[in-house]
């Protein structure tokens, strides 16, 4: 199923024209064929990662990648670290908790410091929307956004698109329901951009207190009724609900949220019979998603998303460092 979805290289512009960006700051900067190009490139890394003991390619040998995470993260950091190492790069992690950021150094000064260390790529996560763009404007090497505030989390959207494509054979013409805390979610924003761009019908299903203003201007249909929102969906994409949203400010309680918006087997039955269930993790079992839905291998793609995450990040690191590595056609 997967090989049929990969386009031949001749479908893309030659060399560096296939992906013209120096950084990956958001899906908003990408064209549909650039997204497709990354997904196709990721397929080979899926194969390598599954190929047994020797999961190593030395395409990025000698390159230094800094993962600068100003916000706590376990899985995304790990995913980027593994991606870099599988490509043979030297990967260094910088945690904000241990850094001079806590001592009052400005973000720009931190960026200049990283730049002076001659990184070949910097992966950044930051709690403030736009922070990654700010750093990208100041450094000489490619910058990858690993999540900035509520703004974007492009590699998550790419790995989700790859997961859908591999499961359902395509990632166009589908009905996809994104459910939960859309207001505070960068995963939702990047996915809305990517999935609408690729030609899917995207729905947003959320309590009215967690729907961003002017949501429909991003070409989605908005539902506050979960059953109606899931009706006929090919993909049900759940979002993580932060505990602090459920203390009364946005939602009355976890149990009320579960009653109205939790993904139960009964609710999932509203979607298409073969609909898949996605979640970026980490899950709040029993709140936004029931365990028997999350753990159903026929429906749930949650572990596959994690696997695709490594492959997509390998593809992004490979593509963005081709100019540095003087890959023919990339200058």
């Amino acid at each position, binding site marked *: 199923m997967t090989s049929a979805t990969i386009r031949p290289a001749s479908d893309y512009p030659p060399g560096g024209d296939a992906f013209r960006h120096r950084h990956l700051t958001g899906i*908003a900067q990408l064209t549909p064929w650039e997204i497709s190009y990354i997904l196709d490139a990721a397929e080979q890394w899926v194969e390598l990662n599954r190929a047994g003991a020797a999961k190593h390619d030395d395409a990025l040998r000698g390159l230094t990648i800094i993962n600068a995470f100003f916000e706590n993260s376990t899985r995304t950091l790990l995913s980027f670290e593994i991606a870099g190492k599988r490509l043979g790069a030297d990967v260094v992690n910088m945690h904000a908790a241990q850094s001079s950021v806590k001592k009052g150094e*400005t*973000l*720009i000064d931190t960026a200049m410091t990283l730049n002076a260390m001659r990184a070949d790529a910097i992966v950044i996560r*930051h709690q*403030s*929307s*736009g*922070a990654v*763009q*700010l750093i990208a404007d100041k450094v000489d090497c490619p910058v990858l956004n690993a999540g*900035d*505030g*509520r*703004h*974007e989390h492009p590699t998550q959207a790419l790995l989700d698109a790859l997961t859908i494509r591999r499961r359902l054979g395509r990632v166009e013409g589908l009905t996809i329901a994104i459910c939960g805390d859309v207001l505070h979610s*960068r995963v939702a*924003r990047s996915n809305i951009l990517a999935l609408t761009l690729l030609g899917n019908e995207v729905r947003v299903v959320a309590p009215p207190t967690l729907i*961003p*203003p*002017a*949501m429909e*201007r*991003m070409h989605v249909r908005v539902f506050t009724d979960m059953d109606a929102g899931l009706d006929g969906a090919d993909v049900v994409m759940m979002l993580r609900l932060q505990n602090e949203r459920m203390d009364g400010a946005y939602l009355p309680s976890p149990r009320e949220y579960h009653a109205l918006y939790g993904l139960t087997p009964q609710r999932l039955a509203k979607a298409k019979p073969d609909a898949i269930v996605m979640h970026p993790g980490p899950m709040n079992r029993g709140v936004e998603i029931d365990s028997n839905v999350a753990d159903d291998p026929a429906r749930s793609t949650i572990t596959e998303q994690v696997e695709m995450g490594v492959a997509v990040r390998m593809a992004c690191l490979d593509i963005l460092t081709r100019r540095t590595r003087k890959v023919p056609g990339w200058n």
Partner: protein
Amino acid sequence: MELKPLLVENARLLGGDTGRLLAVDGRIAARDPADVPADAERVDAKGQWLAPGIVDLGVFATDKPAFHFGGITRAALMPDGGHPLDHPGMVERAAKGGKPDLWVHPLAAATKGLAGKELAEIGLMKASGARAVATGRARIADAGVMRRVLVYAASLGLTVIAHAEDEGLTAGAVATDGEMATRLGLASAPAIAEAMAVARDLMLVRETGAPLHFRQITTAAALDLIREAKAKGLPVTCGITPAHLFLSDTAIGDFRTFARLSPPLRSEEDRHACLAAIADGTIDVLASGHDPRGPEDKRLPFAEALPGMAGAETLLAMGLQLVRDGHVTPARLFDLLAANPAKLLGLDAGTLAEGMDADLILIDEGTPWQVDAKKMAAWAGNTPFDGMPVQGRATAVWKGGQRIR
């Protein structure tokens, strides 16, 4: 040094008819005088416009180079540019901060520490030179406190200058609700936060009869309320800065922190409503909102940057653009920039009438120039108009008949 009489000749007075203006002993003596003192210093304006110096209502810093560049001769200083101006001694010191070449009129903090709880010593601050009372960057949340501030200031003959945003709706917000804020992932608040604050304060004005000025009104809904209140004869006025007349929230795209303002930039519909309100007289004051911010405050992620723009240098040029675009006449522009704010502050200034202080500017209204954040006279170049081609600038400035530029 003895001050010679000043005669400006061949000038278009307020951008209108060509004439002459005589100032003697620091005051305007006559338009088109029959007799000119023999020792008068004669200035040939060569057809440039002669206007009263700009009275900039509500600035956050005494930034003389920027004010001189912008033709601003009087600056009404907000009480929260630095430490709150809530004490007579601080007001007195702030008032002296412009000497000798700039009038600074401090605005007294309405409440102690601008905390919105206890009345500040408004009477003593008036005696120290405060010309009006202001709530600062935020409104007074407690309606009871606001009511007492209004009646107390009114009894002293002072207008209260208020900020208009409902703090509940705007808590944590850095932009106006809309597609731009949603796409950028910025916390935003509905535009009606402004009208809600205006509605409350208009009720207080209706009940107390106390004069109130909203420093910045930027939305259609709030302007409608003010228009209606004025029609009923309530003592209400309002102002705006050029940012909300020329920019909408699309300007915050790419997370441009120079476009992070308070109140935040609004929708294109609201911007057009502001232009209509400038034209129909609902808006009384055009001010710079001058709030220079260095990179430590602006070169940050959008939500972490502080709001504010360095507006003093672009105020006149943007005002002239309103004239060129046909929204206002030149005479009305100088009402917005000088006469109306001077009246609000109780100053003998702001017009070219006989007896007024001879605060004057010559304006070359047509010369094009480009706004450049890196080459500003202000101590910081945080202008949302960076790179914009504009026309017109002050070429000469007099304060009390004394040439200062």
